[in-house]
């Protein structure tokens, strides 16, 4: 059952040292910035972070890395013009990197949520990123065996949640949210708005509430928020 909390700090309170944390977002779109900031404030350390990028500028994941709270990053694209904190930690040998092609990252997360033990993907075959991995030719095409990436916690961002935790997203901010929600033992979502049950069309729910454990609405104290929480 989905719980609703008032602050980002409460929402991330359950993240332990050493946890594997799935962070939603592609660039800034869909990045749960307030939850990441709360994670930074919480002092949690020794994290493995799974995210498409590895932080930008002096915000969010970049700060977690700067503060050496991240032991390992699993991502597809850590190198950006302003990823200096990642660069520094990585070059100093203080941050482990597992580089994963973006589609394999998405599919490995999907496999974790879907109970698939492993899968053969054509992506990366014959490249250095598949070195040491099992390969197989199937019907004339070559594949690499890839395994699920499970999270202890997922921190994601959505547009709205209803009071059973169903989520809808907005435009390309959807990106990794739905697969990460299903891939983690505990999924925390920041939303712009809470709405009463029945106000999201069941045909249009993107992430059903079964995947959502904790929700916090970050729009300062709307009455809707309170109503939904009491519904």
């Amino acid at each position: 059952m989905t719980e609703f909390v008032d602050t980002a700090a409460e929402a991330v309170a359950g993240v332990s040292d050493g946890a594997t944390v799935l962070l939603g977002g592609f660039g800034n779109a869909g990045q749960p910035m307030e939850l990441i900031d709360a994670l930074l404030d919480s002092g949690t350390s020794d994290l493995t972070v799974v995210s498409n990028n590895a932080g930008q500028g002096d915000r969010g994941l970049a700060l977690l890395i700067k503060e050496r709270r991240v032991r390992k990053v699993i991502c597809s694209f850590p190198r950006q013009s302003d990823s200096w904190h990642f660069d520094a930690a990585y070059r100093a040998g203080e941050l482990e990197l597992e580089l994963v092609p973006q589609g394999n990252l998405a599919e490995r997360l999907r496999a974790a949520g879907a109970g698939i033990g492993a899968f053969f993907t054509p992506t990366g075959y014959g490249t250095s990123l598949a070195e040491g991995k099992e390969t197989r030719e199937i019907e004339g095409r070559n594949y690499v065996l890839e395994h699920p990436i499970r999270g202890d916690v997922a921190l994601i961002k959505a547009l709205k949640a209803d009071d059973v935790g169903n989520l809808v997203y907005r435009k390309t901010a959807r990106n990794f949210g739905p697969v990460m929600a299903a891939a983690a033992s505990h999924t925390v979502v920041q939303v712009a708005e809470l709405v009463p049950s029945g106000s999201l069309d069941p045909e249009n729910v993107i992430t059903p509430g079964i995947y959502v454990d904790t929700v916090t609405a970050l729009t300062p104290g709307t009455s809707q928020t309170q109503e939904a929480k009491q519904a």
Partner: protein
Amino acid sequence: MSRQNSTASQMDHQPLSREDLAKLVAADIAPGSYVNLGIGQPTKVSDHLTPEQRVTLHTENGMLGMGREAHGEDIDEELINAGKIPVTELPGASYFHHADSFAMMRGGHLDVCVLGAFQVSTGGDLANWSTGAPDAIPAVGGAMDLAIGAKEVFVMMSLFAKDGTPKIVADCSYPVTGLGCVSRVYTDHGVFLIEAQDGGPRLVLREAYGIAPEELVKRFDFPVVIAG
């Protein structure tokens, strides 16, 4: 048969009716659970779930938030459950396609799945999809997915077959649906827990109905622990 085995102290207790069994299972489902109820007897569990339990029902043909069976004008042939019976939609429902629905099951997101069975082994193996008769048309549906697709799998069945032998067995003689997947067996004569422990699972009789626990465990040719 159970009456004959009842001890004097159990005379006021009857074996559980199907209705009572459904009530018992419903009461054992934790508040806020996501639950899939198999076709047949397990479907009756929904009649006994209370609104306070806030249990969300999943149907594997693509829906969470399934309501009661639909009747009369509520019938919509595009809103059915896995048994192809028209049902209703509750507020907070959601629809998804078959791959997403079975990903939800296989991924272990449902809290409880309640299934009927021909046999359950002491190790939690389930046999409920085929009698193994050589001339039968085989059909499996979602049985194997349901067997492995929840944090806990509860079985509901009568404890004894028509020939009087228990349907909880050392090894299933019917074709299995899944291995080591059942955690509880709800029957007319008793509720059994299959508990994981070092050295393999053990079978525990939680409570007996219409028969003394000590008498009931004698009906098995393997050890059954009486919960104490």
